[in-house]
């Protein structure tokens, strides 16, 4: 399946942190828990998606850095 532009950009941020397989899995998990369609992510979805991913990264990165990554995600425009 062809990746949407936003989906690809999110994966570009997540992959170095989570590794390719886990980045894919984490994005799917977040989209599923927020009831978003992964292939049709829009700029309007990014705030909630960023919040969900930030929450999942906090134990690894601490709130401040996780929040910085979350901000980076929420600013994606597609």
């Amino acid at each position, binding site marked *: 399946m062809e990746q949407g532009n936003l989906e690809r950009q999110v994966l570009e941020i997540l*992959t*170095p*942190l*989570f*590794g*390719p*397989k*886990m*980045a894919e*899995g*984490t994005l799917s*998990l977040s989209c599923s*828990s927020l009831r978003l369609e992964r292939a049709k992510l829009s700029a309007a979805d990014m705030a909630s998606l960023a919040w969900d991913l930030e*929450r*999942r*990264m*906090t*134990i*690894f*990165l*601490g*709130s*401040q*850095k996780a929040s910085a990554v979350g901000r980076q995600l929420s600013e994606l425009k597609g």
Partner: protein
Amino acid sequence: MRIPIWYWVSSGLLLLLNVAVYALAPEGGALLVWTSTLLPIAAAALGAAGVLAAVAALKTRDSARLAWSLLALGMALSACGETTYMLLDSVFGIDVESLGSTVADAFWMLAYLPYFASLAILLSGYRKSGLPMGEARRYLAILGAASVAAIALIVWLLVPILRDGETDLVSKIVYVYYPAADLVLLVPAGILIAITAQFGKGLLSVPWTCIAIAFLLWAGADMVYSWLGWNGLYGEGNFIDLGWNAAYLLIGAAGLFQRSILVSD
């Protein structure tokens, strides 16, 4: 996003010196005595510095900072244990091995509490993140390995030590405490390995992997130490010291890697 070169060089030199002196220095000589007591202090201090660097980079008071702070506390207590041992053995000339246990053991034994608490916080935080815990077969493998280690430990080490009429009560407690505490510590360390194995080359998991491997090394060294110590075979220049020193350095490397992730753009 890397560990600074000075840390690799210092750690490499320390371990190289450790191997060289243990292999070549004459038994009972001053060089061996001082090396075997000073190098663990240097390794623990380097390791503690690495973990403190991570704590300093975690600016917000949250569970990640608490876990790393507890790890730093454990390292500080371990460093106090190493320093006390050096003072007793090398400065005051007390035959520490013949005593079976000293005040240094109190520091090392106490250090397990923050180590365990730190791992428990990381695991609890990971569970709350909702990320997958990993494949069941990995847990089965870990459970199998832990069960074999526990049975071997109980049959060949703990029961014989407890039944030994020649060993005093305090020494018995010390010889039993370390491997038993290690066994308890191996459970969260094993779970950490099962979790981090899912991340492949992902940077987030590297510090946790280093910590888990360090505790495995540590546990291995402690178990061998307990058996050697109980049989009166542990002495200055024993190569199992390398297990502890490498574990200290690996925990420090975990801290520095964590810092490098935190300060990167």
